[in-house]
């Protein structure tokens, strides 16, 4: 296996295999596709439609009676995938035409997936699936996709603007022709088997034709009916007809049928009269349709807890008690108060703000025994943001345990408490009273010593929990757990109880955005495993309009200045910037937008480019690192080469960092835009290259994450090299005996190892280390070396880093010096072996946070609390008389792990908290083990416990090998040595370097099921590279002007990618553009000025420098 030749052999075979599979799938296009335009669904509307019930149907009837177009009442049905009564009349057989033959064999699944739920999870899954080569139907029950994330102001732990990072994804969904968004739709039933599923939908009428509506808002202005705005959690009013929110996708208006005067009383009709586009359509009515897809992904999200159920908090009674979701809207620049932190009762600025945690979570009295996982962090975030808005504000968070367990959460929490003045009080609020005149609120709570206290606040935010969404059982036919969430596989939670239906996000368990995105990506990958033979079979390819030839034209620059809500507009005088820019040479158009990234803005930009005959575009908004692709795409769709675009970052580099000096911020924004305009004037169209993809993956690390990733890739039809430094597979999981559900981890691990070793597409290299990585996305060359120094060169298209982690080796608490002091894993081993001596143990003391949340490792290891509780329960089961003490700082049993914590308390396990600043002490006294702990609940009084065993909950550490691997792969690590992903929220398994992905403990501490899910996500991301025939390479590459080149060959020496060679015949240097990464190192060294970096040419940068300098002289 170490011979390069053999490897080559494998590669060739594989190529044949993959190509073969592809051919097969393309041959089945006709079979899988049905109906118009190749859409696979078959309409069943008609007879069923009459079964439609409720107010909507009545409204529709009322409308039918009043409007003159009754004869065409069925018109609304024509927009289904395949419509018409004829098909229905043909009988109940849902499939007709080319697809009536069904699947000729089991190898021809339908190359389409239905994703139900348009929140961040559904959006991610849809984009991923479309990218993997499948047609996607994205269903949302509301009038727009976006979900809860679209309503959030900021996201933790980076305080990034939520809409700013979500909106580009929404726009991507809207512009992707392989994703069909179906709004106002609910799933009625799901039938079929994996590869061939039928989903019956009920689609409610929008009363507006989304194809015609421009979202201009004329109708809203004339609509007489006011309703509470659902987007702003009902805090202000909107009209019955309106675009749900500025960034909505589809960006079309919607009518609330139940309150519309035309639909209910047959009066008004203002909207019809004012709509220039003729988009209002009262003929629409509720209909049912059936879609045929290969797989279904359920991502319906969650239902917020109804705070009025906790009557003692007075929600709905007292004006100044709001839910966290409402407060999120209050903080939002695009919210009802434009981000001013004021009270609903009198609009006064808030001074004393209280957060009440665990409202509807960890509370069996309301039937929610689980932890909602996200509330501790979002409350911390809201406190920080509120304080940012009003520096004099005093926020207090009342909580039980601070669950800052995720990556970088602990630092965020510590920073909030220690540096940003957020006050944290341990204690649950027992009741809230309102002062009659001031409408202030009195919060009653028991402090840790048990004393009842009362404190007055201006505004109270209830941190409401997450409840299971509706319809999991009825619509999808899924089994649910005791909390009503989708029952899921213990090791890979995206697998639901039903084959063919995958579940992701909060519908499976309360979780935050990155975990949702990870699961959504994983679900997309798992769907692809079933459907990969039909990859591309239903795909439509996007054709951009031909590029306009702008050569020889004078530069006509259009500049768009984004307000980004108040993110820019709140600190920079945007009209002044626009005015300034209008006066710059070459600028023929300049205007501001509230959100330049929204869907309607893209359409507007296209129009502007057209109307003003622009040939250069400048957008002054946020960072090009996230938004440049969006605007380039827009420009491309307007028929202009996408490299004729330049961004000015007036948010991250201006408004956000100069918040206290608005005048200077405005001036700086003007200069930044001027620099961009000057550069834009000298931009030239660039051509992109293409490079081949080697359809093989490399997985580094043979632990649970690495093996899962390898298996997933192999099951999607790709060959995988799995490199493990040790002599055997298994990694850290070999130390874990059973998981929190009591499942045997070793059995799972054996099954995994066996599957990997049996899988013929996986080549395992044990005892090998990666010594060198070369190449780039699509064409990596990795050198590995075994223990005897033999080297093997692997060629592959993508890399998954799954190097795992380690365990902290304690030196404290007499570990290693007294045999009675163990780690949790050592204890678990003895429990699993049913060690008889354990039954004779009278008392076990567990100590939490050993090696975690300390100065040297300031992060939470996430798994140790659950580990301790799990082992405590197992001990109790083994011998109920054994006393178990758990000494902790916060018990972080998030999600359903809380059940274990409750069970442990019920079983008599004693939990004793100690403060962050102190530590317990373990000493030997006369042969006995003695643990002394200052009990925080007793005011720090020291409690002495004689123990027979002490179990240390030791933390997870980063793999030291990461330090060596990071530079080889050109990827970053964080301060703790874990790999740093491309984006905390939305790209949790990607690196900024293309084609390299991360999963498992290499990324951060996490549990086995989280590692497995992340591995599936990383595999899906790698698949998105490997499934491409070719990768389009950037236009930003170096070129050599042969006229100027003196042939000195300095650049040949310098190029780190060996992209520059010397042409012996022409005596000049030449650049291989598919090897060139566009660093420009050669250009800086070229004494003749012959070598140029496209898009960053010296003359362009000189213009920027001149603009920067001149700006001050104006």
């Amino acid at each position, binding site marked *: 296996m170490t011979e390069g030749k053999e490897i080559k052999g494998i590669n060739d075979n594989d190529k044949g295999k993959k190509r073969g599979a592809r051919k097969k799938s393309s041959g089945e296009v006709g079979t899988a596709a049905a109906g118009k335009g190749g859409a696979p669904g078959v309409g069943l509307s008609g007879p069923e439609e009459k079964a439609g019930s409720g107010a909507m149907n009545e409204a529709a009837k009322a409308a039918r009676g009043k409007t003159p177009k009754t004869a065409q009442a069925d018109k609304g049905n024509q927009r289904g995938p395949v419509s018409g009564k004829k098909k229905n009349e043909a009988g109940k057989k849902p499939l007709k035409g080319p697809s009536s033959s069904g699947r000729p064999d089991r190898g021809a699944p339908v190359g389409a997936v239905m994703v139900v739920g348009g929140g961040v999870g559904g959006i991610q899954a849809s984009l991923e699936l479309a990218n993997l080569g499948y047609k996607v139907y994205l269903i949302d029950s509301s009038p727009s996709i976006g979900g809860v994330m679209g309503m959030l102001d900021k996201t933790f732990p*980076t*305080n*990034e603007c939520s809409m700013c990072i979500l909106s580009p994804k929404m726009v991507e969904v809207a512009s992707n022709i392989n994703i069909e968004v179906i709004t106002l739709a609910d799933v009625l039933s799901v039938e079929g088997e994996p590869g061939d599923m039928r989903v019956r939908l009920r689609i409610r009428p929008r009363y507006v034709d989304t194809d015609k509506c421009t979202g201009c808002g004329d109708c809203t202005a004339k609509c007489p009916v006011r309703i509470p705005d659902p987007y702003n959690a009902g805090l202000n009013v909107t009209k019955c007809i309106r675009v749900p929110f500025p960034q909505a996708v589809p960006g079309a208006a919607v009518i609330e049928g139940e309150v519309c005067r035309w639909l209910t009383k047959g009066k008004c009709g203002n909207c019809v009269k004012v709509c220039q586009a003729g988009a209002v359509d009262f003929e629409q009515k509720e209909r049912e349709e059936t879609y045929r897809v290969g797989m279904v992904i359920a991502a319906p999200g969650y239902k917020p807890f109804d705070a009025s159920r906790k009557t003692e908090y007075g929600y709905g009674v007292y004006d100044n008690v709001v839910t966290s979701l409402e407060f999120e809207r209050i903080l939002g620049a695009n919210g009802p108060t434009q981000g001013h932190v004021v009270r609903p009762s009198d609009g006064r600025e808030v001074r004393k703000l209280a957060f009440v945690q665990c409202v509807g979570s960890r509370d069996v009295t309301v039937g929610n025994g689980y932890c909602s996982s996200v509330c501790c962090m979002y409350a911390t975030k809201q406190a920080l943001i509120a304080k*940012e808005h009003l520096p004099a504000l005093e926020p207090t968070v009342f909580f039980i345990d601070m669950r800052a367990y995720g990556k970088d959460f602990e630092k965020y929490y510590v920073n909030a408490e220690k540096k940003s003045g957020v006050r944290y009080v341990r204690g649950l609020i027992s009741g809230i009273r309102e002062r009659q005149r001031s409408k202030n609120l009195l919060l009653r709570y028991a402090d840790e010593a048990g004393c009842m206290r009362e404190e007055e606040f201006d505004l109270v935010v209830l941190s409401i929990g997450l409840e299971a969404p509706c319809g999991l059982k009825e619509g999808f036919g899924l089994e649910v757990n005791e909390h009503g969430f989708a029952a899921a596989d213990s090791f890979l939670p995206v697998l639901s109880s039903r084959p063919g239906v995958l579940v992701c996000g909060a519908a499976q368990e309360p979780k935050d955005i990155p975990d949702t995105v990870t699961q959504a990506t994983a679900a997309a990958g798992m769907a692809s495993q079933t459907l990969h033979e039909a990859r591309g079979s239903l795909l439509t390819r996007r054709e951009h309009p031909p590029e306009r030839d702008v050569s020889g034209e004078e530069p006509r620059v259009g500049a768009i200045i984004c307000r980004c809500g108040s993110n820019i507009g709140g600190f920079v005088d945007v009209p002044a910037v626009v005015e300034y820019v209008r006066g710059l040479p070459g600028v023929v158009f300049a205007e501001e937008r509230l959100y330049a990234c929204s869907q309607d803005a893209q359409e507007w930009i296209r129009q502007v480019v057209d109307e003003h005959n622009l040939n250069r575009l400048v957008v002054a908004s946020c*960072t*090009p*690192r996230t938004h440049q692709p969006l605007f380039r795409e827009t420009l491309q769709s307007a028929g202009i080469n996408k490299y004729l675009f330049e961004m000015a*970052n007036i*948010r*991250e*580099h*201006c408004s*956000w*960092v*100069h*918040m*206290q*000096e608005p005048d*200077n*911020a405005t*001036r*700086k924004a003007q*200069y*930044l835009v001027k*620099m961009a305009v000057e550069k834009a004037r000298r931009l030239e169209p660039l051509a992109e290259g293409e490079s081949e993809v080697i359809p093989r993956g490399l997985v580094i690390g043979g632990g649970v994450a690495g093996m899962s990733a390898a298996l997933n890739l192999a099951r999607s039809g790709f060959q995988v090299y799995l490199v493990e430094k040790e002599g055997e597979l298994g990694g850290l999981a070999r130390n874990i005996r059973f998981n929190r559900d009591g499942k045997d981890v070793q059995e799972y691990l054996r099954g995994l190892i066996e599957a990997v070793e049996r899988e013929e597409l996986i080549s395992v290299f044990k005892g090998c280390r990666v010594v060198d990585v070369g190449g780039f996305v699509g064409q990596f060359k990795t050198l590995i070396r075994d223990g005897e120094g033999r080297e093997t060169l692997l060629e592959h298209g993508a890399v998954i880093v799954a190097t795992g982690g380690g365990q902290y080796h304690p030196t404290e608490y007499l570990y290693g010096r007294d045999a009675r002091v163990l780690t949790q894993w050592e204890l678990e081993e003895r429990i699993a072996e049913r060690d008889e001596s354990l039954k004779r143990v009278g008392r076990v003391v567990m100590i939490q946070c050993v090696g975690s949340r300390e100065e040297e490792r300031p992060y939470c290891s996430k798994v140790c609390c659950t580990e301790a509780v799990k082992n405590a329960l197992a001990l109790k089961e083994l011998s109920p008389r054994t006393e178990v003490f758990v000494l902790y700082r916060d018990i972080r049993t998030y999600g359903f792990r809380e059940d274990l914590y409750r069970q442990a308390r019920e079983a008599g396990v004693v939990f004793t908290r100690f403060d962050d600043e102190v530590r317990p002490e373990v000493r030997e006294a006369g042969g006995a083990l003695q643990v002394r702990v200052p009990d925080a609940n007793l005011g720090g009084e020291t409690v002495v416990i004689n123990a027979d065993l002490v179990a240390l909950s030791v933390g997870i550490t980063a793999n030291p090998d990461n330090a060596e691997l*990071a*530079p080889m792969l*050109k990827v*970053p690590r*964080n*301060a703790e040595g874990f790999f*740093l992903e491309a984006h905390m929220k939305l790209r949790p398994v990607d690196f*900024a*370097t293309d084609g390299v992905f991360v999963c498992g403990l290499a990324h951060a501490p996490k549990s086995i099921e989280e590692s497995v899910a992340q591995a599936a996500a990383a595999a899906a991301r790698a698949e998105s590279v490997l499934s491409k025939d070719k990768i389009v390479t950037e236009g*930003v590459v170096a070129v050599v002007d042969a006229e100027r080149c003196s042939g000195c060959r300095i650049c040949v020496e*310098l190029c*780190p*990618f060996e992209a520059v060679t010397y042409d012996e015949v022409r005596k000049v240097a030449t650049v291989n553009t598919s090897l060139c*990464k*566009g*660093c*420009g*190192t050669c*250009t*800086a*060294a070229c004494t003749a000025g012959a070598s140029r*970096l496209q898009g*960053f040419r*010296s003359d362009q*940068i*000189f213009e*920027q*420098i*001149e603009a*920067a*300098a*001149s*700006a*001050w*002289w104006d």
Partner: protein
Amino acid sequence: MAEESAARKDDDIRILAFLCNWCSYAGADLAGVSRLQYPAKVLDVRVMCTGTISPYFVIKAFQEGMDGVLIAGCHIGDCHYLKGNYMTAKRFQVLRETLKFLGLEEGRLRLEWVSAAEGEKYAEVIRSFTEEIEKLGPSPLRKKKAEVGA
């Protein structure tokens, strides 16, 4: 009004920062996302790698009247393009020498390594560099340019 701007012209200092796309530009983004405040006297130019920063760029910046130039890139060993920042580190030594020939203080040119995760470091670099340039005052070349221009 004219007097006002003239007054500002004299004591206001201006800094040009060349930031590499992968580390320091991202670090500056993080400073923004974290709302870390620093003086608004810096304008930045995004380049793909510090290795692409030709000595001409720096000299041009001073010629045009900039009072300070910052080059910020990935930490040594972290370069997205493997060794671009080594080149920068080498060129930097030469450049500093060159500044003396131009009659400029060495402190007007600074090289810093700022990673994508170091928002705080970026803000601190800008604060301390602004302070340093303010101490040095406006660049002598700027006055010359003004004279020539006038």
